[in-house]
């Protein structure tokens, strides 16, 4: 009786664990893996005649043979990388200031101030920028009012505007991990650095940066992925020449009814962006599990 009891006792634990894991497994399978597999399946079909489809690679070949598509992808990837670097450069001093310079209430207050704009939806924030930057908008009118310029100036619809919007909308995802990691850096290390004759730069480079490196890399990954997959900001702020890869995907699905091509682009976006992240990890000599923990 007793042996059977112990043998049985093991199964409920496993079952319990399985039940606990159930939501996350279901979520992963139903909402992440299954749609991706379906996409892959659709992307491998090519249209031969109305209502008739065959398996083939033509959708993927189209990406590499039509310069427009891979140029758009390249442009999106490069702009995303630049946006990520700019975000890092702007966010690092802010995080350092919040984590190391401030104490008590001011610290919490500033952190919340960084957070507050994100309580509003991305669409509303982007329209906010449009109101500020358009030709008949706030900034243009103000510049004319104080007499700096004669006629109205159009700030919208340029690559610089897209960059501004992208950096702004992803700032939080860099500030949060950086602040919490910098917060955990013991001040005595920095003091020791100065005691041992280091100057501002060498302390920063040899003590602060190595400590913050996992947060820098994880922040960069998140910002890069968000920027690459952003749809609203490039469309609304970029205007007639915006060209963003997600827009290509949207166009294929919605205005060209070409789900096969759209799915192929989706699969390519996922695999190429994963490749870029992998390269980034290799170059910075970080491991994915360490960065994400």
């Amino acid at each position, binding site marked *: 009786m007793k042996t059977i009891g112990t043998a049985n006792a093991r199964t409920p634990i496993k079952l319990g664990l399985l039940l606990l894991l159930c939501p996350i497994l279901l979520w992963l399978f139903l909402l992440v893996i299954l749609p991706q597999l379906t996409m892959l399946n659709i992307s491998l079909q090519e249209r031969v005649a*109305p209502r008739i489809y065959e398996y083939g690679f033509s959708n993927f070949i189209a990406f590499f043979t*039509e310069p*427009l598509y891979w140029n*758009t992808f390249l442009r999106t990837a490069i702009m995303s990388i630049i946006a990520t670097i700019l975000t890092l450069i702007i966010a690092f001093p802010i995080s350092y200031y919040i984590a190391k310079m401030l104490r008590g209430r001011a610290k919490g207050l500033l952190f919340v101030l960084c957070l507050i704009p994100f309580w509003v939806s991305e669409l509303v924030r982007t329209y906010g920028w449009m109101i500020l930057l358009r*030709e*008949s908008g706030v900034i243009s009118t103000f510049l004319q009012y104080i007499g700096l310029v004669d006629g109205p100036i159009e700030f919208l619809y340029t690559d610089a505007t897209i960059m501004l919007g992208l950096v702004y909308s992803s700032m939080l995802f860099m500030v949060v991990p950086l602040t919490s990691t910098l917060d955990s850096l013991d001040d005595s290390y920095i003091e020791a650095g100065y005691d041992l004759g280091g100057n501002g730069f060498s302390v920063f480079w040899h003590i602060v940066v190595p400590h913050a490196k996992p947060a820098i890399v994880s922040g960069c990954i998140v910002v890069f992925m968000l920027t690459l997959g952003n749809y609203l900001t490039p469309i609304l702020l970029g*205007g007639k020449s915006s060209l963003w890869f997600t827009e290509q995907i949207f*166009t294929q699905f919605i205005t060209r*009814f070409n*789900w096969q091509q759209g799915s192929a682009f989706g699969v390519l976006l996922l695999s190429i962006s994963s490749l870029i992240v992998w390269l980034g990890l290799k170059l910075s000599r970080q491991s994915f599990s360490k960065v994400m923990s």
Partner: protein
Amino acid sequence: MNISRCRSLIAVGFTLCITAQSVNAETLRLLTWGGYAPKIVVDMFKAETGIDVEVTKSNNEDMIAKLSATRGGGFDLVQPSQDRIASAHAEFNIYKPIDMSQIDNKLFVASMLDATLKSSMYEGKSYGVPHIWGTSGLIVNSEQAANVKDYTDLCNDTYRGKVTYRLKRPTLIAFAFSMGLDPFAAYDDPAEYEKIMLQVQDKLISCKANVKAYWSGGDAMKNLMRSNETVAAMAWDAGGWQLNDDNKAISFVAPTSGALGWIDAFAIPRKSKNESAAYKWINFVMQPKVAAMITDSAGNFTASKGADDFVNASLRAKYKASFDTAAIDNIKWYPPVPAGLEMIEGKVLDRIKAAK
């Protein structure tokens, strides 16, 4: 405290009853354009038939995308343009043939009904009946761009950064006509059509410096025109007439090469769950008085016979000012799009968008 709690309970109970009732009541899920099913008409329909109308606003591409995703389900009645019914059905199998015995054809302008039945024909069956028609042409601010008479005038150096149009197929076709080409004649010859489209592509790329932004929603276009950020646009007639209410200098102009005429139709999705309500709605909104109310809300005229007499005088006056008899005869009506042409257009549109 207790009484108020009681009251709120009763209120909740009532609301539940009402919601339960409305769940039991019939509904018609209508996928249509903004303004085509104004609330007042929906309420009148509900009072007369007891059927609730759930309105979803959309556009041609979105309608096809939605229906192709569900293989013709999710809606009971949709309103694509007549030229895009047969090709979309051929490609995705999303519609049901129209049962003309359930439609009161005396309510329709006969020529429009016949034209739509013919253009929406697939394998011998018709899939659409007409509802609202209108045109695309030019919206011009006469104080600042009086010289814009045709689509190609939008590319004049004078209007650098001052014009707006959509980056969609009507623009390609309009510019082709304006350049003296005839895309409709080439509809059945993909090679010839592609040649025409490549010429239009070059024209639109060279014209890009003039474009302030490619508009996508009617409101964005109206904002650009209203704020004087643009002085001329290619857009729908109704948009021009609405802008005219705010600024007398702006109005719709029928281009010399001809306005492009469209008819938005009714079509029944293959998996429609309430066909009888769909037919009831069609017969209801085609009554002259109801049709006139829809004209007031949408800004465009309907295919309902005799409805024009009920339309308000100012809209009729604007319509007359934009279209003299010659301009009406010059309207180019869209023939049904053969399947496959949209692939060619798609690539052309992508290249224009990508060009510097």
